[in-house]
């Protein structure tokens, strides 16, 4: 698959400080439609902070970004979800006391419209929409490989299942861009392998993927392009193989993982 040249997400000069700490400084990225874009860097480099900015949870102190051509900095999270950015969280944030199915159904919220009236009367439109929500949610659960009864509470799922449930929930919002924060963390080799397959299916369905990951094999095997953050700055960007050989990157990782 050849990445198309037009940008889906374009960050320019993003800066973010927490007190005296510059978590991000002057970060510009350019993510194209249909690609899997990797974001790597040591712990504390600012990757998650970047995610929080593009999903509206934090406001950047400097710079801004466009998504699908429109400027979105300083926008509320739900509007960014509506615009088509969905994400998962590094420290899983599921709706713990809701069932697996309900978690994914919540993801459909932004693309559906039944209000109080529909909920109370259960009119034809509301019923049809509810049916469609359930059906889509079940499909997504199946796609994410959650074989457990769908009525299981999210907090009772295994760790790997919870990670995949988060992905299913994000996909339910019909994103154009899926941002995954360390989805393979804590997974064993088989689980990582099935995650890789899942991500490839997702990309094949036309969704652009932005991926934070520490697992170098996963990054190399999956990503079209990679950017490296260190101390809040972008120190390299390019094809995975090139980035891997970049001296600055090796230095950032102290010749460790990325070598």
């Amino acid at each position, binding site marked *: 698959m050849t990445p198309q040249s037009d940008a889906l997400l374009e960050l320019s000069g993003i800066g973010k400080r927490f007190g005296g700490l510059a978590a991000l400084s002057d970060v510009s990225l350019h993510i194209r439609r249909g690609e899997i874009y990797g974001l790597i860097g040591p712990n504390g480099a600012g990757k998650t902070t970047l995610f929080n900015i593009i999903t509206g949870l934090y406001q950047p102190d400097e710079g801004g970004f466009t998504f699908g051509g429109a400027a979105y900095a300083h926008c*509320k999270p739900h509007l960014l979800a509506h615009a088509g950015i969905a994400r998962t969280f590094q420290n899983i944030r599921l709706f713990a006391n809701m069932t697996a199915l309900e978690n994914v159904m*919540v993801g*459909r919220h932004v693309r559906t419209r*039944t209000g109080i009236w529909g909920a109370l009367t259960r009119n034809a439109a509301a019923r049809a929409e509810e049916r469609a929500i359930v059906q889509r949610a079940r499909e997504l659960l199946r796609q994410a490989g959650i074989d457990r009864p769908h009525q299981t509470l999210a907090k009772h799922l295994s760790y790997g299942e919870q990670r995949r449930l988060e992905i299913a929930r994000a996909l339910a919002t019909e994103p154009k861009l899926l941002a995954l924060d360390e989805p393979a963390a804590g997974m064993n080799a088989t689980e990582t392998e099935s995650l890789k397959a899942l991500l490839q299916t997702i990309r094949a369905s036309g969704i652009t993927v932005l991926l934070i990951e520490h697992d170098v094999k996963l990054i190399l095997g999956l990503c079209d392009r990679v950017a490296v953050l260190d101390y809040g700055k972008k120190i390299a960007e390019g094809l995975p193989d090139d980035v891997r050989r970049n001296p600055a990157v090796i230095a950032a990782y102290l010749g460790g993982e990325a070598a």
Partner: protein
Amino acid sequence: MMNKKQKPMIQEMIFGNPSSRKAWFVFAALAVALLLLPFATEALLGRGWVRIVDFALLYIMLALGLNIVVGYAGLLDLGYIAFFAVGAYCYALLGSPQFGLHLPFWVVLPLGALLACAFGVLLGAPTLRLRGDYLAIVTLGFGEIIRIFLNNLNAPVNITNGPQGINMIDPIRIGGFSLSGTHELFGITFSPVHLYYYLFLCVTLLVIFVSLRLEDSRIGRAWMAIREDEVAASAMGINTRDIKLLAFAMGATFGGAAGGLFAGFQGFISPESFGLTESVMVVCMVVLGGMGNIGGVVLGGALLVLLPEALRNGAGPAQQALFGKTLIDPESLRMLMFGLALVLVMLWRPAGLWPSTQRRRELSPDAEVAHQEQESVYDAAK
């Protein structure tokens, strides 16, 4: 087909599932029991207790309304009784000699509910972005503000009649049928407490119906998502401010409606009925019963009204029997025991007597099995 499996069973138990004979039987038995309850209560415990049951229904309505705010959306509201007060005063001012207005019940009651809703939005709009406990104190302050206004708006212009409250409020009249009279129907004598019982029962069932429908809907799921994790909910595209405001407004509306019924039922209201203690009591009903679970909330509401009354009737005579005289002020003793009961029940069941997560497990036994399996896997791994 798939969809049918989705519906929660509690709903089927209350409204009946045509495909299940057992559910029908339970439903019919429940209906008969509820219909006979006031007469059975009167025969066994006396008429005073029918009145208490009526109050229990009013408080159950309140608890169900607050459950939308606290149980579903996870917003701690410590001033909920203010909405009850707004509804009650709206009814009282428009249907009593206070202003000489005697508007019909079907105008004032919805008006009170609407006014309470407006107050809910007015309070919620600027404050709902506050984090949990800050919201709690703001709502508490709001409740106190309303109460203080009711207490003092008798001068320089007399609106609320101050601490004396409003007397001779019109009874609820449906058509020409006053609920405050004694009526002979089908050869049975119905006194006001019976008639109000049936009215309150109908309204309570309506509130339960509304709650159940909302719970199992797009809006209900959004409320629960916010309760579970507001950040994740907003990242999934939920407009958290609007959805929280909706919960607040819905809860306030129910509170206002219950307030109107209260005013008509009592015929007299004063600011005393709308203090912080009452707000706190409604929160206790919701949490102790089981936040977010209709059955639990109903249980909590019934228990917290009936238990203190039972203790009131028990504390004095029990002392008489034991010691031959009243050693301890029965009023203090009963509240003491009530407080202890609150502590003990929460220690015994921290998630409430009948919590919603447990109900979910009851709904899908397979999930429970899966959970046990998972735990045994953990055990094996140790």
